[in-house]
């Protein structure tokens, strides 16, 4: 079949509505197989009829014919149902777009030019002036915000430095404590040669502890990449042996800085003391509510660890006494305090 004798739209509709006689149907079907364009023309016409039916645009005779055709075409009924779903989807999308467009329409930025345009020239100048002020304000706020961000960054940096310093202080305190212990044990070695083996072990222990902490400190400094200023120790440490008149080193001197928050004391107890707990602390004749921790340093040597607030200590000579639960003295110590 050529283009010249191609079926008309009316004939195609009749074909789709099952209104043609057999020979006429044959003619259309023949062209459907021979002519792809014609095939798609029929397809599209059917789709259009279905869509118009779905949106209620088919009227009168055409509507009746279409509905009649549905009786003869189960596939078209499916098509109508699917087209209804498709149109529902399209309508929902259109609604979504409308809502978004509406939101933009009510946006202050969108309304501003109209708003200005509706006013007198004087009012327009005023609004324009306000607008400029607003822009200047925004710029100022942006600059301010940038400066604040820089300030926050600087403060963060300082906080990090403070953290580094605190860590270094702690390590220095540990070094100091190790050095004290090392010194005391060395001295003990000199005075108590009978106990050389245990004391040597203590020396080695204290030395290795000190070296370990020094390495940690070195590592901290290395990681940080630059040396930092050493700051005064906030917690001071001291190692005391029981006081004995004429005994070398049994009186110690400690300088406390203005920022010293506490003095950690390691007190060597009298050998052979009865260690009944709780152990009480007297400073300059006054019983102080201080916790005491006991450590067994060797078979002979026990240490009591206490932490004392600087205000409890007098400038100059201080007398510290430890007593057991039976109120027996288990250690008496002398410490000279000096303050910067």
């Amino acid at each position: 079949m050529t283009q010249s004798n191609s079926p008309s739209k009316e004939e195609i509709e009749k074909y789709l509505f099952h209104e043609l006689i057999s020979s006429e149907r044959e003619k259309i079907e023949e062209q459907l197989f021979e002519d792809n364009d014609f095939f798609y023309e029929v397809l599209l016409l059917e789709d259009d009829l279905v869509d118009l039916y779905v949106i209620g645009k088919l009227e009168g005779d055409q509507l009746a014919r279409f509905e009649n055709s549905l009786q003869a075409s189960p596939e078209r009924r499916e098509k109508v149902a699917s087209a209804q779903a498709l149109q529902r989807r399209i309508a929902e999308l259109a609604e979504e777009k409308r809502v978004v467009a509406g939101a933009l329409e009510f946006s202050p930025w969108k309304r501003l030019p109209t708003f200005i345009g509706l006013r007198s020239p004087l009012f327009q100048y005023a609004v324009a002036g306000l607008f400029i002020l607003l822009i200047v304000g925004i710029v100022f706020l942006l600059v301010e915000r940038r400066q604040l961000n820089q300030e926050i960054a600087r403060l963060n940096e300082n906080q990090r430095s403070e953290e580094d310093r605190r860590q270094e202080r702690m390590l220095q305190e540990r070094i100091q404590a190790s050095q004290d212990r090392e010194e005391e044990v060395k001295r003990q070695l000199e005075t108590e040669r009978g106990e050389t083996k245990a004391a040597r072990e203590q020396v080695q222990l204290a030395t290795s502890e000190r070296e370990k902490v020094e390495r940690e400190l070195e590592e901290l400094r290395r990681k940080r990449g630059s040396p930092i200023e050493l700051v005064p120790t906030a917690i001071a440490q001291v190692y005391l042996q029981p006081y004995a008149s004429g005994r070398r080193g049994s009186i110690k001197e400690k300088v406390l800085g203005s920022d010293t928050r506490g003095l950690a004391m390691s007190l060597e107890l009298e050998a052979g003391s009865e260690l009944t707990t709780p152990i009480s602390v007297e400073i300059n004749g006054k019983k102080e509510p201080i916790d005491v921790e006991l450590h067994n340093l060797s078979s002979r040597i026990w240490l009591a660890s206490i932490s004392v607030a600087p205000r409890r200590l007098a400038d100059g000579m201080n007398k510290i006494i430890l007593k057991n639960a039976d109120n027996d003295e288990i250690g008496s110590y002398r410490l000279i305090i000096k303050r910067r």
Partner: protein
Amino acid sequence: MPEPRENLFEGRLSGVAFEKLLSALDSDRERAGEKYEKLHFKLRKFFAWKGCHSARIDALADDTLDRVAKNLAEGTIIENVNSYIRGVAKRVWLEQLKKPHEESLEEDPPDIATPETPAEEDKRYECLDRCLATLAPDDCELILGYYDAKENEKNKDKRKSLAERFGKSSGALKVQATRLRDRMERCITICLDAWNKV
């Protein structure tokens, strides 16, 4: 390229028969595959316009092409493939009319006064959504734009501008849209069928 189907009617469709059919459609295998798909689509619409049920039209189109392939493999000389296929399709249609269980117009007049229930509509809508999601974004946009019936009523040039935007002629866009719609409708039918079987 379509896969050869087997066991669809009276015995097995051999690979040789399928190759014969493709060769008869076009000497180039890729183009032959495209022509096969178009023929299958055309046959489905042919059976639909004859009043066959949507659930049956796929099987009838398969049956038709399998018979043509088998005849080719048995040595039948075909001068006009399109005309020959139409003849076989008509025979297939007449045969299925005679089968008592077939869901044909004559034997099982539909009741169009029974619209889908809201639950059925929702199922179909859900299936539509799923099927649209299987399309490429451009295809999805095309089908939603091309079949926006209300918008097309208002703006007669809408499809033309859509064609320009997709860089296609109006004819090419029309073909693509109808094929996409058919694909979507088939997808919905399969989806609903699967849903109803659950």
